């Protein structure tokens, strides 16, 4: 006879069943399987011929992969830095008791509600030299104005950054604004009595208090950097040449077009390791902070 206590515990497990299946099949199963595939000679179909780390050797001597990784690092640093800076400045500006605050906020945040595909396509048009901003400025009489970054391998990544920042700066703004609003009003009063200029309060007192907001925004942005795929596909299709390829696209292309499962899974595993290396310290820090908060 099951006691009521046993039956409610069984109910709890039944509710958690989907989650446990996902844990076993997706989180653990798929990850292990992907890692294992990266150590085999699988091509179009999976097989279990163990080849050691050979796929990784091939991967890291593959020009397109190396370029993808470089691109991602370059894009990632610029995108995260500029989004954080712009988002923070916007939050500070909006925090100055501006008129119709809600409207400003809506304007900065709406891009975040749109998909990367839409974002990529719109900016592709705007940055297209023959019809976008370059043409607009030339038509206004500046005949020699050039803004054709999207057409050149050396500059195309800046275009991805522009589109990315446009998409995500509002998110940072929203997170930072919430952080700023959480600052005790008395701190501002105390600072005024102390005679601190406003910029000094932001620099020395308030910004150091926003550590958690910066961390949250930074981690969110970094996650979207590693996942970067749709934007590159929609905006540049990896071009010109391979100048705007990214790792996620490398994996997808090798899985579904080039039928090279082992290389694709080696690439995916490399991405996984990178992400864990970034996220693990963050998670650790969060648990420490949480533990300290409880103490």
């Amino acid at each position, binding site marked *: 006879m099951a006691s009521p206590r046993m039956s409610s515990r069984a109910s709890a497990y039944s509710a958690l069943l989907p989650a446990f299946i996902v844990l076993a099949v997706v989180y653990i199963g798929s990850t292990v399987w992907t890692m294992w595939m990266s150590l085999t000679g699988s091509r179009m179909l999976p097989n279990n011929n163990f080849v050691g780390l050979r796929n990784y050797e091939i991967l890291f001597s593959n020009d397109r992969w190396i370029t993808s990784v470089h691109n991602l690092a370059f894009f990632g640093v610029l995108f995260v830095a500029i989004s954080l800076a712009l988002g923070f400045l916007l939050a500070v500006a909006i925090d100055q008791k501006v008129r119709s605050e809600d409207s400003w906020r809506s304007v900065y945040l709406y891009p975040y509600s749109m998909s990367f595909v839409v974002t990529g396509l719109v900016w592709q048009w705007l940055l297209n030299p023959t019809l976008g901003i370059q043409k607009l400025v030339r038509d206004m009489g500046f005949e020699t104005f050039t803004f054709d970054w999207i057409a050149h391998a050396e500059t195309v990544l800046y275009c991805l950054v522009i589109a990315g920042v446009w998409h995500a700066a509002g998110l940072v703004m929203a997170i930072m604004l919430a952080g700023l609003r959480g600052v005790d009003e008395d701190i501002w009063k105390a600072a005024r009595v102390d005679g601190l200029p406003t910029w000094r309060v932001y620099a020395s007192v*308030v910004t150091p208090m926003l550590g958690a907001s910066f961390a949250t925004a930074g981690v969110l942005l970094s996650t979207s950097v590693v996942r970067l795929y749709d934007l590159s596909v929609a905006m540049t299709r990896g071009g010109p040449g391979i100048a705007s390829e990214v790792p996620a696209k490398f994996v997808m292309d090798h899985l579904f077009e080039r039928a090279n499962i082992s290389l694709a899974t080696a690439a995916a595993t490399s991405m996984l390791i990178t992400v864990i290396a970034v996220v693990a310290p963050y998670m650790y820090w969060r648990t420490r902070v949480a533990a300290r908060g409880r103490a």
Partner: protein
Amino acid sequence: MSGAAAMQTMSPPGDAGGPRSARPVRMTPARWGLYAFLAITAAFFLLPLWVMVVTSLKTMNEIRLGAIIAPPLAPTLEAWAKAWSSACTGLACDGIRVGFWNSVKILVPSVFISILVGSMTGYALSFWRVPGANVLFTAMMIVAFIPYQVFIYPLVRVFAFIGLGQSIATIVIVHTIFGLPTMTLLFRNYFSSLPIELFKAARIDGASFYQIFFRIMMPMATPMIVVAVILQVTGIWNDFILGLVFAGRENLPMTVQLNNIVASVQGEREYNVDMAATMLTALLPLVVYFGSGRWFVRGIAAGAVKG
């Protein structure tokens, strides 16, 4: 009184004795600079939307001749009509409406099921201390950061193996899987913030696990459900990669179809149609965003604070 007041109050000298000195001026040069900064950045953020809208309302002739930011001389919805019902993706010329309906078919069950499963998981994790729960939760929080590429191929094989292949059912399950961490977190945090006495009282009244969930917890969780719906509707509607891989050729969602329409150029490129198709694809998230106001921000904040 936050930074604002500190910035705006100048200090004209207090005059001794005489009539009251004037009040500090509100619009200082610093305030002008502030508004200038806001206006210039706002222009940057609004430019793409503006260009999209005006271009979609122009004829190709006008696009070729005029400036991209000029408002349409004779606004016409022709491009919208074409984008909706007869734009071409490769071979078929059925417009983006096919993708629209596919997205709807994917969206409705995905949103419903992912929220149901996520809220139930969050509930089980917050009130019921079952062994293994912590492992589960930690794993979810880590997975929320991991790129899909790690999971995609094994999942394709699993779905092929169990006979679902690429289908609406598959993509709904996939959205539920990848929505699980955020949904669970959202509801777990919300339920944890409720007084535990509520739960204890219900148990003493003899309510079962599922009775407590459906009769007591879910009715109280309405605000979280709104937030979850906003998050999932925009997230699933905007998805590209999962739909591409798991939905199947017949069920490609709107984002994928949009990309195909724009990519397939036959003869002269019809920018107005492309922009109209883009607008159509962006419409639902924009409506959700502007319709939901502060809820959207709440959703972001709730989804953003992981752990």
